[in-house]
């Protein structure tokens, strides 16, 4: 992945978050406090500005996005995305491009970070329900020699399904956990916005030739 693709990913993510802002707020209203879309949109606006600086290299760009999200999103999402992306930045090469394996390694670092900080397990009705299986599929695909755009295309569809599957779960972490049984029947907004990141990844790589 090169820096142009990486920045395209974040610009696409910003657009799709903004487009789904009200929907994310409505998901959050059912089991939280109705502001997940607003908070993520506010953060993404700042985050994409970091991409518009020329040729900083992947690590510098990722770190700038991390700091933007850490200081503007707020709430649990801001802490998880921000501190997770700092680990992503530390794991990705400084160069302007990286191998698929290095990209997968950085995603792995991100997922480890959100699990350490959020202490959520698979099935707790959080963003981990999307990111954990997605990481596993990403790493397996790269190991098997699949092309990253093809993996991303599979993940775009799979993560959308995983996000929707959180509907049947009872929340065990995050603010929705206080609702207990009443959290069932609603899609987790953090899981849904996470699936949009993989959708953006797929779209960003779709333009890659060969």
């Amino acid at each position, binding site marked *: 992945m090169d820096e142009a693709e990486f920045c395209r990913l974040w610009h696409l993510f910003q657009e799709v978050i903004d487009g789904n802002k009200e929907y994310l707020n409505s998901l959050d209203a059912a089991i939280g*406090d*109705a502001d997940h879309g607003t908070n993520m949109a506010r953060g993404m606006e700042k985050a994409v500005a970091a991409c518009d600086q020329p040729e900083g290299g992947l690590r510098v760009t990722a770190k700038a996005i991390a700091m933007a999200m850490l200081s503007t999103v*707020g709430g649990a999402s801001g802490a998880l995305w921000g501190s997770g992306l700092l680990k992503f930045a530390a794991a990705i090469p400084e160069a302007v491009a990286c191998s698929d394996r290095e990209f997968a390694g950085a995603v792995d670092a991100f997922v480890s970070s959100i699990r350490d900080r959020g202490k959520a397990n698979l099935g707790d009705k959080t963003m981990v329900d999307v990111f954990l299986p997605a990481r596993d599929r990403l790493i397996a695909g790269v190991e098997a020699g699949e092309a990253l755009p093809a993996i991303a295309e599979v993940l775009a569809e799979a993560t959308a399904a995983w996000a929707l599957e959180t509907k049947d779960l009872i929340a065990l972490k*995050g603010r929705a956990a*206080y609702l207990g049984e009443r959290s069932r029947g609603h899609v987790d907004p953090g899981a849904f916005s996470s699936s949009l990141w993989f959708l953006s990844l797929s779209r960003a790589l779709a333009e890659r030739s060969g």
Partner: protein
Amino acid sequence: MKKLINSIDHVVDEALDGMVLAFPQYLVRVPDTHVLARAVPKAQGKVGIVSGGGSGHEPAHGGYVGYGMLDAAVAGEVFTSPTPDQVLAGIKAADHGGGVLLVVKNYTGDVMNFDIAREMAEAEGIQTGTVTVNDDVAVEDSLYTSGRRGIAGTVFVHKVAGALAELGASLEEVAAGANAVIANVASMGFALEPCTVPAAGKPTFELAGDEMEMGIGIHGEPGTHRMKVEAASELTRHLFVKIAADLELVAGTRVVAMVNGMGATPLLELAVMANELGRLAAAEGLALEQVFLGEFMTSLEMAGASLTLLRVDERRLELIGSSCDTPALRQGVKFG
């Protein structure tokens, strides 16, 4: 949505400036941040106390900045935890060389953002400690969840931690005193009407004319269950029984209480609730030492109330009753 605001994006910013305008003897705003700090910092070497969280809980937390309580309060967006850089600015404002105690309400976002800020502060050589308030007995504590929420009992933690810090206690001693409050405090609340987060534009839940939500948190989220509205005596009893069971209160136990309005319930009704509390405490043989009545930890314009009980011994009662001078809580000031 009918709100007394100019724009959703500037609510918190403008409210912070409004607080400083109204209370210049207490508050200054740390430039370019959402941090309110004491206008007159406490003496060098004393422990600083920082609290904060999402906005919408006024007078928490900026209203408690002043002598005997907080040194700095960090405001997030409405019902959204402040970000780590903002919390770090609060820690720096409260640091007078004696270390800084962070009083955090147990909400996932608050815990994470304060943790990250604490890591940043430690990296800069500022000694810090954290206490996490989890007084809400509406939700079960469990190893598998995030545990109980922190709600109005947080104000008692501010009071005791602040009093100890003024007395010159060390960071460990202040943290121990705060943790002793946390171990002995329990709260629970209900909503008669929901509130509207400005950014969302519509109420966070909807209630029929005769319905209410029992066991709410302080972020407009629904409670543990919905029920028909009952008389003040029944509602107060509902909260009291749950809290008393959690604290294992027995006849003769000394307690301090807080009857807290959620934002849109008149003082008249809160006073009715306080009266019911008095009857219940008397029937159980509790020694009700002091009652705080008013709005201390709100949830925007939510109608409803919460009840907090704190078990006290002589020492803790002294610390609760000692002087403090802040925009929202002034006591122990004698004239003449």
